[in-house]
């Protein structure tokens, strides 16, 4: 697979113990979050999801949405998490920029904070149809860092 760091989080995000990046897919785009814990990697993947649509730094964390989901394994949990965000983005016209995730025994509880889409200010590039199972991976590297990624369909 041809991968390349495209848009990605800056040093500040990396300094917080996590970071994210996009990676290439033929027609669409990959989102990848990294963190010291699975939960942190999920938070970063979520920020990468927002960055598919707009610059996350332009999104103010004004509205809080609680999210709960479960899945039989961590990879399907990432799929559920990102698709829950996609659902709230689509139905409430929201963009998210701040995430707090906890994962216990295959259950995810989170709060996503963001604001309603403002076309002028956010200049949204594209809507996300869904997070896919393609390149879906949640894995801990030899350095102990967790990686959570998949392709999103736009």
């Amino acid at each position, binding site marked *: 697979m041809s991968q390349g760091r495209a848009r990605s989080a800056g040093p500040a995000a990396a300094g917080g113990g996590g970071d994210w990046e996009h990676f290439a897919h033929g*027609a669409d785009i990959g989102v990848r979050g990294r963190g010291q814990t699975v939960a942190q990697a999920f938070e970063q993947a979520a920020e990468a999801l927002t960055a598919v649509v707009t610059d996350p730094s332009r999104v103010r964390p004004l509205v809080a949405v609680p999210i709960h989901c479960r899945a039989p394994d961590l990879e399907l949990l990432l799929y559920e998490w990102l698709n829950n965000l996609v659902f709230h983005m689509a139905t409430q016209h929201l963009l998210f920029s701040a995430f707090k995730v906890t994962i216990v025994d295959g259950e995810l509880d989170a709060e996503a904070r963001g604001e309603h889409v403002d076309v002028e200010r956010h200049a949204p590039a594209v809507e996300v149809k869904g997070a896919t199972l393609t390149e879906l991976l949640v894995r801990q590297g030899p350095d102990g860092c967790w990686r959570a990624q998949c392709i999103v369909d736009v």
Partner: protein
Amino acid sequence: MRVPAVFYADEALLADMDDKVREQLCNVASLPGIVGAAYAMPDAHWGYGFPIGGVAAFDAEQGGVVSAGGVGFDISCGVRTLVSNLTRADIVAVQERLAHELSRAIPAGVGSTGRLRLSDHEMDAMLTGGARWAVARGYGSSEDLEHIEEGGCIAGADPAALSHRARERQREEMGTLGSGNHYLEVQWVAEVLDAAAAAAFGLRADAAVVSIHCGSRGLGHQVGTDYLRDMVVAAPSFGLRLPDRELACAPILSDLGQRYLGAMRAAMNCALANRQILTHLCREAFRSILPGFDGRLLYDVSHNICKEEWHAVDGRERRLHVHRKGATRAFGPDHAVVPASLRSHGQPVLIGGSMGTASYVLAGCTTGEALAWSSACHGAGRSMSRNQASRQWHGRQLVDDLAARGILIRSPSLRGVAEEAPGAYKSVERVVDVAERAGLARKVARLEPLVCVKG
């Protein structure tokens, strides 16, 4: 592999194809109950489980499967083309005003909403009625229905198979275009390539036409999301060992397979209703500026679907579930399901270009039946990722450059425009040339854009 994997491409297109396309097509060729071969169209590129530009048929009686990944998230995404009574010069005379009016009338882009809000009861009626429902509600005419695949209404839709979330996602999205590569484009017939077929299709040289490319919106996306997960989780219970989770599938005759088919058909009806509403909004916008405008529907055909069709296999007619993921049905002349007025020349096959480049109208060939279950390409296909494209081009510059060439782009998102730059796509000319040379479909007319409304 249970059957061969067959590519329709020339050397250059093959060389351009990502290795993933080969891997994905081989995976498809390994699925249970597949019949004949797994086929890649000339515009094939790396997709989800199935390559985009992939065609595969399954026999339910032989343990065949239906795959949510093989249809994709944008269920029944497709193209419809309207042929007008106007010429290119008529459009050029009012081009700025028309572009403005269309961009105002057609909800497009992130966060846009339609004017329609459906009650649960109306939602059910839409999901079972498709474009017929839309026409009954005053969007277009019954003449339109004759020129839509399946007469505008897919049988076997099961609204009860949809999740609450799927319905919620559609609540405000009826009559919206979406974003990404979806568009409404005013075009003109720049070249007639098959005079007899073009005449039958009503495509006169210099005539203005309108093409609409979009799908089942949030409802279809959620059906894909829901059933991909359900099929992956259920795979072991069916004894399915998937080389790629995105190939998620279920036996056609299983309860899950049947529920997916019911939900997918409901999403197909949603797409047909959506394109019908957009057609109505488009006609209204045209008539507000050009009162004499008449936009007759040439055809509406989807390119992300699974359909039950009868095909000859080893001299025997068999009922197959044909997946076309980024591929267009292309029945040859005299096929019974093609509208009588078009039948003698084959089914119209509508090939979308990318913003600023040509689109094509093709016609199905008799030879296509044996080659790929009467299927052809669906568009140019991307050759570059979105990130690469947005690094290489600037939206404002692209809009200005295209305006200088007489093509007006109207989009709420300049980054979206950059990601959809014409240079990020393969040459549509090469793709349709190969489709014609292979015998999948033949060229009827080349269309060039004048106005493009994008999300």
